């Protein structure tokens, strides 16, 4: 009764003091704007890409080859050109002009009026020889695109010389459909399409970043708040009224609520943006673009994000509070929270490497690590989203997380109880161990 009342009162103060500050408002606003910007990134990139037309000139010995090259380049490098006339108001990515004066065209390319000039000459053996004159050099973007186009031009030219008609050539290059199925014949869940799995991957990746930010940022808040009370000696006044355990729980709870409010705003901004993305894309780009992220946003993924975010925060926040209680000055906080920072960063890095494919997310080591309590909040989400982790792995990691939170709070409360009244000393590992054993 008393305990709950005090935990509530301490948590309430934490929330009121933090939410009222200008920095909280500004910070939340920036985070929401940031997440909206990220959600609309595909649309934004598409928008800028669209207005950025690459102009290329073709100089060919034979007019037929020149016309063929122009048609091939424009068809190949402008995705929407296949539909015939381009949408009003939208410009093609690449425009091609046929020139006869190579020297003049090269001057224009040198001045930057053209991205480059593709020179095509018929060699003695009948094959086409291509030279690309461009300031982009051998590795530039237009060079890479033109290399691709040149291949197709040469291929069409060879087919033409072999007597294959245009229609036959088109049939030759028609794409095939590759069916994908699970190797396990008893597995019945459908294989997700490319858009959904790419979207879910990206979302899980973004959520892992958010969880990492929540833990580092709000964990530090908890530690700072503890040290602030210690430095200002409010601690002694409060400890007369409340137990260290209540103080710790209230603080973690209060900062947790603040974190929840801030991230609810961020997530709401993100979800709404993702829902709006296809509509906005069709308005701005004239096409719906890839709705990858929208398709990947499933209730299950959101639930897992919430669970790992909240449980991960509780686990780390308790220890951040304990670390804060060991030092007396704000300057010493960073050193005290170093272990938590190192462990969470390590978990985050491994999680990111695994989800980007730098590490094999199916390897036994990653499988084991992703169940370990301090690491699972950063590692399991990505594995669960891609379907690599079995359901029992997810359940096990959550169970271990809950168990370790209970343990962490017990340990933290003891360190906290002993640490809050230690002034001026900087306890090392041995002192911390002694505090744990003796309690006070």
């Amino acid at each position, binding site marked *: 009764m008393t305990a709950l009342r*005090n935990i509530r009162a301490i948590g309430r103060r934490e929330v009121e003091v933090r939410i009222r500050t200008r920095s909280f408002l500004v910070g939340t606003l920036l985070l929401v704007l940031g997440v909206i910007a990220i959600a609309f990134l595909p649309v934004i990139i598409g928008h800028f890409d669209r207005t950025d037309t690459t102009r290329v000139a073709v100089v060919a010995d034979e007019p037929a080859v020149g016309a063929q090259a122009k048609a091939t380049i424009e068809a190949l490098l402008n995705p929407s050109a296949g539909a015939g006339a381009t949408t009003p108001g939208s410009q093609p990515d690449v425009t091609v002009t046929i020139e006869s004066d190579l020297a003049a065209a090269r001057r224009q390319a040198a001045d930057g009026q053209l991205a480059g000039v593709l020179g095509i000459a018929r060699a003695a053996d009948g094959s086409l020889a291509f030279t690309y004159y461009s300031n982009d050099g051998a590795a530039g973007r237009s060079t890479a695109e033109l290399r691709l186009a040149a291949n197709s031009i040469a291929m069409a030219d060879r087919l033409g010389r072999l007597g294959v008609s245009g229609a036959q050539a088109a049939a030759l290059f028609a794409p095939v459909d590759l069916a994908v199925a699970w190797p396990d014949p008893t597995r019945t869940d459908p294989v997700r399409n490319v858009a959904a799995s790419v979207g879910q991957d990206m979302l899980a990746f973004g959520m892992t970043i958010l969880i990492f930010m929540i833990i580092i940022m709000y964990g530090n808040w908890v530690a700072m708040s503890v040290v602030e009370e210690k430095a200002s000696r409010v601690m002694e006044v409060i400890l007369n009224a409340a137990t260290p355990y209540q103080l710790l729980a209230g603080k973690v709870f209060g900062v947790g609520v603040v974190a929840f409010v801030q991230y609810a705003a961020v997530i709401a901004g993100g979800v709404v943006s993702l829902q709006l993305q296809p509509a906005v894309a069709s308005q701005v780009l004239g096409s719906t673009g890839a709705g990858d992220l929208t398709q990947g946003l499933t209730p299950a993924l959101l639930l897992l994000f919430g669970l790992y975010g909240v449980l991960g925060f509780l686990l780390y926040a308790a220890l951040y509070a304990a670390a804060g209680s060991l030092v007396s000055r704000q300057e010493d906080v960073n050193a005290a929270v170093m272990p938590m920072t190192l462990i969470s960063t390590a978990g985050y890095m491994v999680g990111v490497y695994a989800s980007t494919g730098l590490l094999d997310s199916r390897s036994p080591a990653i499988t084991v690590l992703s169940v370990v309590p301090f690491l699972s909040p950063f590692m399991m989400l990505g594995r669960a989203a891609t379907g690599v982790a079995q359901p029992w792995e997810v359940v096990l990691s959550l169970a271990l997380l809950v168990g370790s939170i209970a343990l962490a709070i017990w340990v933290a409360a003891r360190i906290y109880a002993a640490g809050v009244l230690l002034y001026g000393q900087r306890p090392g590992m041995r002192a911390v161990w002694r505090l744990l054993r003796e309690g006070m």
Partner: protein
Amino acid sequence: MALEVDRLRKRFGAVQALDGVSLRVEPGQIFGFLGSNGAGKTTTMRIVLSLMRPDDGTVTWDGRPAHAWPRRIWGYMPEERGLYARMAVIDQLVHFATLYGVTRAAARKAALDWLARFRIAEHAGRRLETLSKGNQQKVQFIATILHEPDVLLMDEPFVGLDPINVKMLRSALLELRDRGRTIVFSTHQLEQAEALCDSVAIIDHGRIVTSGPTREVRRSTGHRVVRVAMESGDAGWLGEMEGVTVTRGGADYTEARVAPGVDPQAVLRAAVRRGPVLRLEVADPSLEEVFVELVGAIEAEEQTLAPGAGA
């Protein structure tokens, strides 16, 4: 029903902070806890409040262990003042009181009453850090007593207050005592203790040197004090008497300490024989004199703005 501290011992590393401290504070009294810096006052208070565990010894209030009582019977004003610098005065007062179970509405009303009484009502909505040190200290005091604790422990409550605020705090303490509260405060300003305390204890190096009702402690050395003012203005002869030491010579009067076994009345008779007398007084030694005699010169922990106001 009394606060009883029994043979407390506490060691910090190589330092024996408390070496068998025993005290008895009668309920409804103001009790002064006197000692130099590091004598063990703060440690004793923290143990009484269960903020720290003793290595040995017990603390009871009304026969029950101190830690078994609900927290709301205790009020504590630490020596290092502790408030939230960036929180509004009224908000933090309400916060502290709610931790002891006072409702927010009742806490707000009581806090405003006390702020008005200490003449800082206009600061209620301001952030604490904008207040002067003296005013912050008054806020600290209010934070200590809003939940109406039965036992009030205060560590150096008068340090840093100007004479007017010292007067306000003293009248507040006397009022709380008259309402039946038990008050313990530590100080090194012995004039404050002398003027305010029903009982005192002197602690030095973790041991109680003497304790009891203030009057008995003042008499505990066996010395008496005489103050003499002669019309001639010359009282130098006092120092020539057997067992009499002049402790203060002045234009207005001369003060002398009379050793145990010497009758102060003999000094008075000698004065009358010397000529016309303007003032003759026999008194107990001040606490400061007793302290100096028992412990040695007191180390000032902090120079105060209030040089014994009203003493």
